[in-house]
């Protein structure tokens, strides 16, 4: 497909008028440079989603949009179950509820400088990461079902972390109405030894320093000060989520035709939300969300243990935990009326504005923390959801930098050891078992995260609150 014609409908907003089988327009949030970087394949994925039944308002793409499979990465779409709206496994992806969790350490850079290498070593040793790593917990089949039903709430009940942590996780740490029975035995088997593991690829554990504050009032509410040392975890639902994606994509692809759904791309396999398979997938996918939340909760305890060995009096307090690969039933206003819609966010972060009932009391007046992961050599950002975000893109924002170069190209261009050296010169410690893995994750293989965040903020999807610089990065 040729690059569709784009109409600039706002300074940071571009529209593809509906053509062919599109029911609604495509809307891309970006500045001029970012829009020029978004290729025609990504745009055709935006258009394909616009052709799915029951889509409401538009098929959206965030400023970090790049080519995915089915949905683009950075894609957001709402479907109305009462109007034949669909649920798509490809709209969630294989890494269900991949997300970011950020904590305060209560420490400043001076306090960690002398022990930085020791801290990096301890995290690399004590947090299971990389291909083939296993956690210290093996779950029985009953325990797996309880974990899938309870998420982080289950983990806290089992002694991983505190009840206070739960206030700072989407939906209080548990996706309601998960149906563990709809998760295949194979998916459960894959997870048996993977609780409390980080995974690989773009997943990481980072120690970061707050280097800039953009909104003093919200930063204060989030407990952020310049110079603060933070910890962020980026990971998802591990083997269980990957298998749920595999299982249901296969089923959806074979059943879509019987509901009269034409698939422009098999990866967009979808069925009506209100169909038996749609409901089964919802139950399984919510179990996947709970698996990711439980996993990040267990990792939290491992990180706290590392810190308490080196800094006996630290208390790692949660800032927030938010996922960026999900489909969630949410109430949104459409043409002045409240509707219950299924919001797919594939590589996009929920960004509820002030007043949302899902927010902890201390954030309610300020909006939801939106955690944007950078690369190991560039900044991460903390944003806050805005009131206008709901009318713009069903309360959604970007999720990271977004890749600009393939892994195969990145390994041709860089060597892992060279990246480690260059980052060491900037006092960033990188720990990884694979030099090739590091080359694939080279900071320059990503879009400029600052430009992505700037466009997100200027478009009104979220407000800039703070900028964080990595000091230590443990890659999976």
């Amino acid at each position, binding site marked *: 497909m040729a690059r569709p014609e784009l109409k600039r409908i706002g300074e940071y907003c571009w529209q593809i008028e509906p053509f062919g089988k599109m029911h609604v327009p495509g809307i891309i949030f970006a500045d001029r440079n970012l829009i020029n970087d978004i*290729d025609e*394949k*990504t745009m055709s994925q935006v258009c394909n989603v616009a052709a799915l039944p029951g889509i409401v308002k538009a098929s959206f793409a965030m400023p970090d949009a*790049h*080519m*995915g*499979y*089915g949905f683009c*990465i950075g894609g957001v779409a709402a479907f109305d179950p009462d109007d034949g709206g669909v649920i798509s496994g490809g709209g969630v*992806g*294989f*890494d269900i509820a991949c997300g970011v969790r950020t904590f305060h350490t209560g420490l400043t850079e001076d306090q960690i400088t002398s022990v930085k290498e020791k801290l990096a070593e301890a995290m690399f040793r004590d947090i299971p990461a*990389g*291909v*083939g*790593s*296993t956690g210290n917990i093996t779950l029985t089949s009953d325990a797996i079902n309880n974990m899938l039903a309870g998420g982080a709430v289950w983990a806290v009940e089992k002694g991983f972390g505190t009840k206070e942590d739960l206030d700072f996780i989407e939906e209080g740490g548990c996706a309601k109405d998960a149906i563990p029975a709809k998760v295949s035995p*194979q998916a459960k*088997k*894959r997870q*048996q*030894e993977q609780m409390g593991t980080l*995974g*690989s*690829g773009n997943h990481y554990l980072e120690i970061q320093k707050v280097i800039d504050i953009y909104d003093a009032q919200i930063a204060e509410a989030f407990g952020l000060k310049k110079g603060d040392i933070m910890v962020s975890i980026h990971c998802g639902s591990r*083997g269980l989520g*990957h*298998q749920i*994606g*595999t299982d249901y*994509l*296969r089923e959806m*692809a*074979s059943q879509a035709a019987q509901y009269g759904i034409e698939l422009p*791309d*098999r*990866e967009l*396999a979808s069925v009506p939300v209100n169909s038996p398979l749609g409901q089964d997938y919802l139950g399984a996918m919510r179990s996947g969300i709970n698996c990711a939340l439980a996993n990040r909760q267990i990792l939290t305890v491992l990180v706290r243990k590392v810190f308490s060995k080196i800094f006996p009096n630290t208390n790692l307090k949660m800032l927030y935990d938010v996922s960026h690969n999900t489909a969630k039933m949410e109430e949104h206003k459409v043409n002045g009326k409240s509707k219950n819609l299924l919001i797919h966010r594939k590589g996009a972060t929920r960004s509820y504005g002030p007043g949302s009932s899902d927010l902890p009391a201390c954030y309610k007046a300020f909006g939801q923390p939106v955690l944007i992961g950078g690369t190991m050599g560039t900044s991460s950002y903390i944003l806050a959801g805005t009131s206008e975000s709901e009318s713009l893109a069903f309360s959604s924002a970007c999720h990271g930098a977004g*890749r*600009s*170069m*393939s*892994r*195969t*190209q990145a390994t041709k261009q860089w060597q892992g050891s060279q990246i480690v050296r260059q980052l060491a010169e900037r006092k960033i410690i990188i720990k990884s*078992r*694979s*030099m*090739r*893995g590091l080359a*694939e994750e080279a900071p320059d293989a990503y879009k400029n995260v600052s430009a992505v965040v700037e466009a997100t903020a200027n478009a009104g999807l979220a407000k800039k609150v703070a900028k964080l610089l990595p000091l230590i990065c443990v890659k*999976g």
Partner: protein
Amino acid sequence: MWEHFAHQADIGIRATADSLSRAFEEAALALTAIITEPQKVEAIESVQIECSGGNEELLLVNWLSSVIYEMDVRKTLFSKFNVKIENLRLSAVVWGEKINQNKHFPAVEPKAVTYNQLSVKNENGEWTVQCVIDV
């Protein structure tokens, strides 16, 4: 013969051989090569894999998904594959060894097989199979 091809977020694998089953074997080798150099993986332990598919493309997805599943639950990498395909039913024996992070330095973990750029083609007796792996 196998190769990796570029995909903006993930990794494409493509394999060519004179029979469908040989092309499937090569595709599985390309899958291992996403993680590590296949020649570093010794063929010590064997696993039996059976699967089927509604057509050759779906069979490819199911085959590679089965290999990913076995890798994940056994924490094993595979380097030798013996595939037989009859009437869209596949039966295979695969050999490999347990992942050793200090020997294999695994780069990245394949999460799943996507339907993106999925194809199985036979031109002049030469089979080419390809798909994109989510990592």
